[in-house]
């Protein structure tokens, strides 16, 4: 019997399923980062040792108002909120005269849904109290009692103040 060595075969790893899965993950992260963008607007938040990290879901129904110094005039503040443009969640600058109406509309929607509403105030540490007070006053007028202030967890590093 004549011995014949086996013919060499080329092995190729089929990467197509892996690419499919990774594409799905990338699309998920792209969409998710778009959704959380308005709620995690980059701000220089103040530090607080007693601040606790909470999952967004734990806060329940909420309206988020970002307060940041205006780029044109740092003494003034801009109020950034989420807005739905029909296709995407985007950000919109809210004039101070519309803050109360915005909060009232959110509170009314929550009442219709039979749920409570929280107001999450994400204020830059450099804005003045007067500018945050506008939102607090709006919460009072809209009868929103539960207020959450966003902060960085921990002690303020030396020299930052």
């Amino acid at each position, binding site marked *: 019997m004549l011995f014949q060595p086996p013919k060499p075969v080329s092995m190729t790893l089929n990467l197509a399923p892996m690419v499919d899965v990774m594409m799905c993950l990338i699309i998920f992260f792209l969409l998710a980062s778009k959704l959380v963008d308005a709620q995690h607007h980059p701000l220089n938040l103040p530090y607080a040792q007693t601040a606790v*990290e909470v999952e967004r879901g734990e806060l329940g129904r909420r309206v988020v108002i970002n307060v940041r110094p205006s780029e044109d005039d740092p003494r003034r503040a801009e109020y950034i909120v989420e807005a739905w443009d029909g296709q995407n969640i985007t950000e919109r600058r809210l004039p101070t005269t519309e803050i109360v109406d915005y909060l009232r509309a959110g509170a009314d929607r929550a009442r219709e849904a039979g749920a409570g509403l929280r107001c999450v105030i994400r204020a830059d540490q450099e804005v003045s109290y007067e500018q945050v007070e506008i939102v607090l006053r709006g919460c*009072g007028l809209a009868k929103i009692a539960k207020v959450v202030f966003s902060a960085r967890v921990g002690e303020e590093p030396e020299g930052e103040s």
Partner: protein
Amino acid sequence: MRRGLPEPAGERIPNLAPMVDVIMVILVFFLLGASLELAAEGALQTELDPRSGPGEGAPVEIIPAVKIALEERGDGRVNIYVLGKRLPGDSFDDLHAFMTRRRDAGADTANPVVIAAQSGVRWRWVVRAMDVSIRAGFTNVQFAVSLAHEPGGDTPGGNHE
């Protein structure tokens, strides 16, 4: 000259390895970016007293366990008043010591601590005062807001709760 036969039609698999490399890098970027952005933010929660504030009803004055007033200083820092008296050194460590003594002396920690800040006081100091109060065990932190919005018209302790 002998012409070669055409190559038999076989399965051709494109090389997906470079694509996988690129997708992996993008995926790692999103993973790191998402976790860094989401993990660092904490929350300070409070519940505003529904009887007080700028609602439709007549304003109700809250008698606080401690009233902390923050007065704007020219250098960006604040003068701290507790129960109407200036805190020597205007230090938040001293404020914490005062609040702790107050708690140890039997003050009801469920009673409201009211923070009244001048309109120009930076938000970081208001959050610091709130943080100190919570660290000392006082959980019910309220904020004084002026009923009519008059920028620059507030004085420490002169706001309405």
